[in-house]
């Protein structure tokens, strides 16, 4: 029974992932990715790590996928097909991936893991929270704080990068001839002034 669950999860993860990287509709790709991520969350549940499975669902499914969907809406029509990947590259990448996969799998297969015999620690939210905010040895308070700084920094970065500022063209990129007004350039190369952003 458990095996069946596992294989279903595995199939969801792998098939979802495969479809996510091959589908030519970007919206569908996002949805396939969603399935794959949910499968991974399922795998965590299957391993009895409920907390991390929940985080996975909340962050990925609730956050990142939604973010991606928004950005898809912002950047392009979701309906039409994406461009076909270059055939040569597809072959190369596929071969490389299969070869690499085979290589790694053979290593995994050949390796004898020594399973731990010690009593398992309950991965409950309580235990996790206790150890994470612990300042003693093996406590994770410092990484926790660092990650919070990182999140703050990335938040600011997102705002700075994505914000729209109107500046005169020559003030931004004085040296690039592409942005000079007095040079005759093909039309598609000349940007309108209001399109130039920081």
């Amino acid at each position: 029974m458990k095996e069946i669950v596992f294989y279903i999860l595995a199939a969801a993860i792998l098939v979802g992932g495969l479809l996510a990287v091959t589908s030519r509709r970007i919206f569908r790709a996002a949805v396939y990715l969603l399935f794959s991520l949910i499968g991974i969350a399922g795998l965590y549940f299957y391993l009895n790590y409920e907390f991390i499975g929940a985080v996975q669902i909340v962050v990925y499914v609730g956050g990142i996928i939604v973010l991606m969907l928004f950005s898809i809406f912002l950047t392009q029509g979701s309906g039409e097909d994406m461009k076909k990947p270059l055939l040569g590259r597809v072959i190369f990448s596929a071969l490389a991936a299969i070869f690499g996969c085979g290589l790694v799998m053979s290593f995994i297969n050949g390796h004898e893991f020594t399973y731990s015999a010690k009593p398992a620690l309950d991965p409950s939210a309580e235990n996790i929270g206790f150890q994470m905010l612990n300042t003693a040895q093996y406590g994770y308070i410092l990484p926790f704080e660092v990650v919070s700084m990182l999140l703050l920094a990335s938040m600011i970065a997102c705002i700075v990068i994505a914000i729209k500022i109107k500046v005169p063209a020559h003030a931004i990129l004085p040296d690039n001839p592409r942005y000079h007004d007095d040079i005759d350039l093909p039309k598609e190369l000349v940007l309108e002034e209001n399109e130039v952003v920081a």
Partner: protein
Amino acid sequence: MNNIGLTHILFISCGLFFIGIYGFLTRRNLITMLMSIELILNSVNINFVAFNKFLWADKLDGLFFSLFNITIAAAEAAVAIAIIINLYRHYKSIDVEVTDTMKF
């Protein structure tokens, strides 16, 4: 349960990783490339969790690593998307082939 060991899970994560690689190498759309990266990150997370579960069940460190990974992946995705949007404003496209000005 006994039949499903660490190896099985590692197979999954390995497959997922190379699927991600394949996607990253073939996809031309930046957002889909970002998706591939998410797959790769997730495969890593699976590994952490699986190792923790099977090899060091008395500890939680693998769990923490994947937790932080998820956090960082979120931050990364956010920044990446910001960059993608910015690029889109410049080039009117998010095709990776277009963004090749940093060459030679």
